[in-house]
């Protein structure tokens, strides 16, 4: 069958929304750039998701594997200086359905805000981890934005 949990909940949500996706299995990788490499893709075609803590809850920021998060821009966008990377302990508690370091920008969590770096929208399709380090999803960037109600912003270092 298609996929064991945790990817199962992801694809279920996509199918319920009639959103096209590709489900890709691959050797285990622990970085988005390595994920791109094993899939034969450019790092700009793969998204990495960074989970942040703020006084108003979690924020999931997705940007290209080749880019680095700019915390200065992020704090300005979020309107607070109190923005931190979520620790592994926090991630394990907040997203038990996903492997550590493989939280995708959609599903899981509870009302997380989602920010997508505007460079991601330069590609029609985006690949992201499906909640594990051995499975990926490819979907239209426009569908990802719609599904997550994401804000499209400039998050990456110049």
């Amino acid at each position, binding site marked *: 069958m298609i996929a064991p949990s945790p990817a199962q909940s992801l694809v279920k949500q996509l199918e319920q929304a009639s959103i096209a*996706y590709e489900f890709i299995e691959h050797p285990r990788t622990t970085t988005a750039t390595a994920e791109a490499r094993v899939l*034969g893709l450019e790092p700009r075609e793969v998204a990495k998701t960074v989970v942040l803590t703020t006084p108003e809850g979690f924020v999931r920021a997705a940007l290209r594997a080749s880019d680095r998060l700019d915390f200065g821009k992020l704090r300005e966008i979020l309107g607070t200086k109190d923005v931190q990377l979520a620790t592994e302990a926090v991630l394990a508690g907040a997203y038990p359905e996903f492997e550590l370091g493989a939280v995708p920008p959609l599903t899981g969590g509870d009302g997380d805000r989602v920010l997508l770096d505007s460079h991601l929208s330069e590609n029609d399709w985006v690949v992201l981890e499906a909640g594990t380090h051995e499975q990926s999803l490819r979907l*239209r960037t426009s569908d990802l934005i719609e599904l997550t109600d994401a804000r499209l912003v400039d998050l990456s270092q110049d």
Partner: protein
Amino acid sequence: MTKPAHAAEVGDLIVITGHYVGESERVAEILEVVGEPPDERYRVRWDDGHESVYFPGSDATFKHSVRPPGTRKAKR
């Protein structure tokens, strides 16, 4: 984003059209039909050689392959 009605089989092609001028289409050959109607997914091989499981959206069209009589593969 409604799901298209279709009845694809192994060997058929899936063509995903671009959403705007200049976006190239993607083509995949169906290797296996997974699941039952109306929730089929397809294990496919894309034109760049990679394989994946694909769940189609409204931008996907199916092109039935032409085979000699009696050679159509059974749906798994």
